[in-house]
């Protein structure tokens, strides 16, 4: 079952989650893009709107 040959111990100080940083940066960009699209195009681009 186990694949011992591949398993190695990586401690706290030798681990830089660079992959996580990559993924989360992509997520950040998606969030900002989708927010701008939804708020400014879908919402503010739609009308009429409640103004008072």
């Amino acid at each position, binding site marked *: 079952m186990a*694949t011992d040959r*591949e*398993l*190695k*111990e*990586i*401690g*706290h100080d030798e*681990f830089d*989650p*660079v*992959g*996580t940083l*990559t*993924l*989360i940066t992509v*997520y950040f960009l*998606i*969030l900002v893009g*989708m*927010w701008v699209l*939804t*708020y400014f195009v*879908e*919402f503010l681009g*739609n009308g009429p*709107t*409640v103004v008072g």
Partner: protein
Amino acid sequence: MTSEELPGEELFLDRFPDEAQVVRASLWSAFVALGIGALAGIVQALHRVGYVRFIDSADYYTVLTLHGVLLVISFTIFFLVGLFTWAVTRSLDRPVENIRFTWAWYLTMVAGTVLAGVAILGGFVDSIPISADVLFTFYAPLQAHPLFYAGLAVFIIGTWLAGFDWFRSWWIWRSENDGRIPLQTFMVLTSMLMWYIATIGVAISVVFFLLPWSLGIIDQVNPLLTRTLFWYFGHPVVYFWLMPAYLLWYTVLPSISGGRLFSDPLARVVFVLFLILSTPVGIHHQYLDPGIAEGFKFIAMTNTMFLLLPSLLTAFTVVASMEHGARQRGGEGYLSWLGALPWRDPAFTGMALAGLMFAAGGFSGMVNAGMNINYLIHNTLWVPGHFHLTVGTAVALTFMAATYWLLPQLTRRRLYSRTIGLFQVVMWFVGMVLMSNAMHRAGLVGIPRRTAEPQYDGFAFDAGLSSVAELDAQVAIGGTLLFVSVVLFLGNLIISLLEDPMEGTVDRSLPPALSGPEDSPEVLDNLSLWVAIALLLVLLAYSLPIGAIVADGGLFGPGTESYPVVLSWLEVVT
């Protein structure tokens, strides 16, 4: 401290046989609710799009109430109490203090569910004047049979007693041990403190207003007040569903990935933030309510936006823990390490896909939180599109995946088929992508939620770039895949239990965090401090709005009647 290993590789079942029985009973209660709730779900999805219709549109709302209550109350919370019992017992490594008390709260919860369930199911039978077609939100003056409210109250009392059980274990553990609260117990305790604060709202609403009113003791209620009290509870309850999933992502998922939790201190910070911020946000469900000043809505929005923080932090910590596993398994590069993750394991793949869907649900939640953009999406299909990603996938799929992992240590049975398990979790993901994508898009063009009919007489919805028919097809196909996925899950589980007990044991120890509790400030474990701050924020967010609602409309409302949703009493259907 975070993850004391069971001595040797003893199964939870062997070390804590009585507790394992309670955990199994709770999980089975959850799965019965899941099965019935899923059945209601497919009936609804196919009726709503007009594909398969064998119920009357008036009965759609009975089905919807059943679907909502069973899945978001019974399924989630029964799973929660089972999981929390497992987590407290194993992380403190001590049995519950009194197993009869433990069974008592479990049975109280069952009794509450049965009472409310009878009231809801009565809605299908015209000759029985019992019904509760009030949906999960039960807004007055729609009125359910008193059994519904009583059942809800009994169920919640059961959860309170369960919380007491876990606190008692911790109090006694503390008198015998030094040091930090073990992480899993910390998560359980903070979640329960949040729950105690949150349920004050629904308890007041049910005990002082809705139950006496449904019994005829008081004539009328203030609909805005009971609605506000509902949402006081109604938002934190979504975090109550989510916290067990978080507990699994923080403490189990890293281990399944072959790694260790990246940071124990940040996990604690996240749970403390949830305890503090989950409740003073409920008014964000009422952005479009008359009778609440814009300033109060703005305060609720600010709190809600900051409540994003713990989830965003979780995204980093959990993904980093998975990455740690992947790298220990030989993964390399910026993204190719993802290939080194154990995708064959349904427990891993299920939780990872659930987390991914939660990231997508996070986005639609951010839109829901944005005060004025609610004019666009409030009460449209966008909203169920959102929460089918959160509670419907982040929570439900994580629970199913975790069940695959928990099964051997609770039942001494191996999962019958890992392949079916893998297909099941992937099928859930695909089904939900289709369904929730269509719901979000339908919401943007104004198609409402909670309605039995796909179209109206006087106008047609304009679906812009695609067509309403295409969106309906996505909902129908997605809903069907989800239902099949639940059937596969339950079937796989039942067959596993029919198999012979396995020999030997499985390693279910949880390795300690990379950055352990010793790195975190002691103050994080000062639960009274966080409760005090949480209560203060609740007072700040709610005392003025509730004061204004009562001042304007009176405690029992400015004049309303009751509208029992009972077939034989109400002759309204046109």
